């Protein structure tokens, strides 16, 4: 896979992984037409061992696990879609895999981009922005006082 193709796939899968499940469900229900599809891999929940880095920047160490759910589908037109996301939401994995597959089909790409990926991406960015704004006023300036005479 070429780098640019890999990066766009990472973007689509990333937006879907970060998506709020309810919002994805809503956008999915709003799609005009979903082509026929079948599972390549039924939604499955498992564990991923999170690795940290020694002192934050050094060698990897095993830190603790996280639940992850994945799924893969293939459209009747042949495109394969994959989903991986933190958590145990199998419906989200199924819908994400279908959306990823549809995004790869010339016929549906535009609709998926404007109706699903775009709004989910904007919503996530707004949510991030809101969190940073709420954190901002807690930034402090400590000052030290010199006591006594020098």
């Amino acid at each position, binding site marked *: 896979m070429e780098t640019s193709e890999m990066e766009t796939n*990472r973007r689509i899968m990333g937006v879907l992984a970060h998506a709020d499940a309810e919002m994805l469900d809503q956008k999915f229900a709003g799609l005009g037409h979903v082509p026929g599809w079948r599972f390549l891999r039924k939604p499955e929940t*498992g564990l991923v061992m999170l690795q940290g880095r020694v002192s934050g920047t050094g060698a990897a160490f095993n830190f603790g*696990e*996280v639940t992850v759910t994945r799924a893969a589908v293939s459209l009747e037109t042949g495109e394969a879609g994959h989903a991986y996301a933190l958590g145990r939401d199998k419906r989200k994995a199924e819908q994400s895999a279908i959306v990823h597959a549809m995004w790869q089909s010339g016929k549906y790409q535009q609709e998926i981009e404007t109706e699903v990926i775009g709004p989910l991406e904007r919503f996530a960015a707004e949510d991030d922005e809101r969190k940073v704004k709420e954190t901002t006023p807690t930034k402090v300036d400590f000052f030290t006082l010199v006591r006594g005479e020098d």
Partner: protein
Amino acid sequence: MYVAVKGGKKAIDAAHRLFADKRRGDRSVPAMTLEQIANQLSFAVDRVMSEGSLYDRELASLAIKQSAGDLIEAIFLIRAYRTTLPRFGASRPLETREMRVERRISASYKDMPGGQVLGPTFDYSHRLLDFTLAADGEVADPERPDEAMTAQLGHVAEILDREGLIEPVPADAENEQPPDLTREPLEFPAGRKLRLQNLARGDEGFLLAMGYSTQRGYARGHAFAGEIRMGEVEVEFFAEELGFNVPLGRVKLTECQMVTQFKGSSKVKPQFTRGYGLAFGQSERKAMSMALVDRALRWEEYGEELVAPAQDEEFVLSHSDNIQATGFVEHLKLPHYVDFQAELELVRKMRREIEERDEAESQEAAE
């Protein structure tokens, strides 16, 4: 010795039924939802995730509800649950430098790039009971200014690193898989990577006491909280079938970098040394304690003397896990009838022997 006992099934069932009733409590009081626990008891959830060694807020909330707030019991439930799931693999190492910071403080630098960001904290509060909470008073929304700070801030230790004032962090050969104590039994010497895994899932209270002991003089090193940061970090996973790193979403972490006193030699000028702590969620006390203990355990690297419990790898790592600990302590509750019978026999025999000897001696004296 523990000998299996049969029977008691009816009593056990009744006891569990009674516990379920007690857990639910007064039926006229609404039952707690998992959303309420996840939202309003977030520190308990974070602790259960950290020590259960499984990041999943919903599961941790369920475990807290099921255990009626007994957090070690909840951690036990989480540890048991994780054994039922397959492992897909390991993530790419988390890049805490790229954390979206919600809190970031340093006790060693007042003015560092990005500044001190308090975030949501208990610090500087007066620890007075707030009776408006009891009355369910309205809570104001947080301030939301138009201008936002930068969310991604470099590590504070980089400031010292640039001047060579702190020991460098050695890197491994790329793709070297670290040891995993959930796969292989713990063996000594364990090494720092395995120690960090053990401490990351270790009991907060135990690590707090061990860390505290280093401050009180049981081990050397005067620690500064170089940096404590909390926020979300991206998780990436290399999916074999796709051939690239897939973003999976974010986890909230607390990281602590302790900066401690110097090490130098004839060849290397004195430098600060490091202790490292990392925990799930907002778990500052845990991350700080872990960092103190991590540093104490590194005594050998610096040619220090082994003088205190917190430096003793075998002692610390063998007693940090609260599920192992509670298993062994609480198994004392289980029937030990056969075992106890044997001890009873023994103590009777010992007493009989002394009595017989005393009797013989008094007879001799009388004769």
